[in-house]
């Protein structure tokens, strides 16, 4: 397996806040990585940084993608990669599609931009893509507007546009969060099938560990802008090492109750406070000790696993 993406010390600053704080990970060709963490931990920011879609942010580190550093490319080079080799789909398919443009045209426009297809070729190919992503009556749907379609259908359209140029990597940012449970399963199944069929690598972003089970090869767990644990999916579920992962998996009842309330109130301050005093999860961690005042690094523990904790489970 060759490495497709090698992210090193990716840091994203909005003014003084570090939304992403030095994360590193690699991804092989065709591999699927789950990026998991609660709301506000920097998952979307990391993905948008790789896409070069963040404005008013300061980026540091490097992200080598097929030999080029995504963070160092100029806008014109980046534009030729975006939507072609590196594609992204978003959380809310209803708002991610342009409300006044026919969905078929929204897919065809990718082909016309990157492959220089003419209108007829692009429409014919869009029809193929609609079939591929399982849209019923694709000939009719090509001419539909987003408001005439369900959320699941809209997400299929987004996926069709994303895979139009057979990208090597698809960033899927909470692609099923806005959808019904049954539709969620269908969309996840579709993504898995497509990534297998085309050997397309994928980063599946979610706050729900349940989603990554059976979907991904590996999982990276983020907390407050950092990766706190990374492991093969099966191993992570079998034996989570970081107390936060343990909490996410719901195996510690104590973390259930005040969980959301805590998160809602802390976000901004948690990072600056943690900057001074070591492990960011310590204030909410049952295992915290004096050692946790020093920030733990993400240390490999063998078998493709790594954890950033002084007291791993």
């Amino acid at each position, binding site marked *: 397996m060759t490495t497709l993406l090698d992210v090193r010390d990716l840091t994203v600053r909005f003014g003084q806040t570090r939304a992403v704080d030095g994360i590193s990970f690699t991804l092989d060709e065709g591999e699927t990585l789950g990026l998991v963490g609660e709301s506000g931990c920097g998952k979307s920011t990391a993905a948008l940084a790789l896409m070069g*879609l963040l404005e008013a942010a300061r980026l540091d580190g490097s992200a080598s993608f097929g030999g080029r550093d995504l963070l160092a490319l100029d806008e014109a080079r980046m534009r030729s990669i975006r939507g072609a080799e590196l594609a992204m789909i*978003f959380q809310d398919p209803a708002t991610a599609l*342009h*409300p006044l443009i026919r969905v078929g045209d929204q897919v065809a426009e990718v082909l016309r931009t*990157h492959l220089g297809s003419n209108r007829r070729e692009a429409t014919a190919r869009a029809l193929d893509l609609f079939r591929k992503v399982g849209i019923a009556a694709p000939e009719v749907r090509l001419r539909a507007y987003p408001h005439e379609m369900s959320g699941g259908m809209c997400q299929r359209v987004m996926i069709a546009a994303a895979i139009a140029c057979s990208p090597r990597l698809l960033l899927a940012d909470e692609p099923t969060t806005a959808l019904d449970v049954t539709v969620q399963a269908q969309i996840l199944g579709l993504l898995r099938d497509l990534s297998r069929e085309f050997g397309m690598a994928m980063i599946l972003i979610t706050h729900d560990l349940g989603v990554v089970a059976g979907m991904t090869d590996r999982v990276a767990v983020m907390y407050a802008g950092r990766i706190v644990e990374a492991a093969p999916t099966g191993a992570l579920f079998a034996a989570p090492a970081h107390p936060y992962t343990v909490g996410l998996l719901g195996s510690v009842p104590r973390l259930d109750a005040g969980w959301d309330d805590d998160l809602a109130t802390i976000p901004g301050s948690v990072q600056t406070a943690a900057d001074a005093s070591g492990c960011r999860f310590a204030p909410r961690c049952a295992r915290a000790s004096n050692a946790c005042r020093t920030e733990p690094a993400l240390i490999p523990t063998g078998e493709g696993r790594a954890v950033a904790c002084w007291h791993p489970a």
Partner: protein
Amino acid sequence: MRRYVAARLGQAAVLLLGVSVIGFALMHLAPGGPLALYTLNPTVTAQDIERVKHLFGLDQPVYVQYVKWVYGFLSGHWGYSFFGGRSVAPIVLERIPATLELMGSSLLLALAMGVAIGIWAAVRRNTLVDYGTATVAMLALSLPTFWFGLLAIYVFAQVLGWLPAGGIETTGNGSLIDRLTHLLLPMLVLALVLTAQWSRYTRSAMIDILTQDYIRTARAKGLGPVRVLVGHGLRAALVPLVTLAGLQLPLLVGGALVTETVFSWPGMGLLFISALDNRDYPVLMAILMVGALFVVLGNLAADIAVALIDPRIRLSHV
């Protein structure tokens, strides 16, 4: 759609009726009248005035005059000018092309410039470009059109002598160049206020739109900046902008009236002012109705255009 248009036209008819009642009433309530001037003339006797009043039908009660006017207007007899005695319809209708030329060219210019400036300011928001265009726009909006008109005449006609001070063409020289040089100043003056409005409106619409998810999607697809800003951004802004165009029509008509007066532009506005001076009731009413019809139909056209642009809007009910 057809039912919608029919219903809207029905509404328009009621509206125009209201406009005519109010216009007619105001005209007759105003002190003085078409014959006021003659009462000061010692050679005109009281009998003469009575005779003329009777001739024009001004001795009848106002409501009788109104009903007669409505009947005449609807059957195509718009009456005769009190001054000169010409039939009103051709007097008014022959002025329409000049007014349309001025309003149309100003509107197109204002649209092009206002939208371009608005997009520019939105993309560069909170920079010098944004503040600069905002200041100029506020200036243009807060100073009256006639002031800009007089300033333009002073600078470009009087001091520099580059352009004519008024009129639509040099008598005896109707060449295209001549007409364009005459059009330039009034067009720019009328376009100024409209451009200022359009630029501010486009800016706020675009700032809102540029934060939308579908713009991020467009960029994620690798589309170029023009495609993103115009193909996706401006396209979404068309709905509020076309709505604004409809709402702006009265402003355009009012602005054209002032501009025509300042530049002696021989359109309906100039005719209106002189008819107002003369209390030429039939001419005033005809201009009022043509102007109101223009605004009402323009609004209807804007609403239909919005429905054509935005597939989510259905024109099935009123």
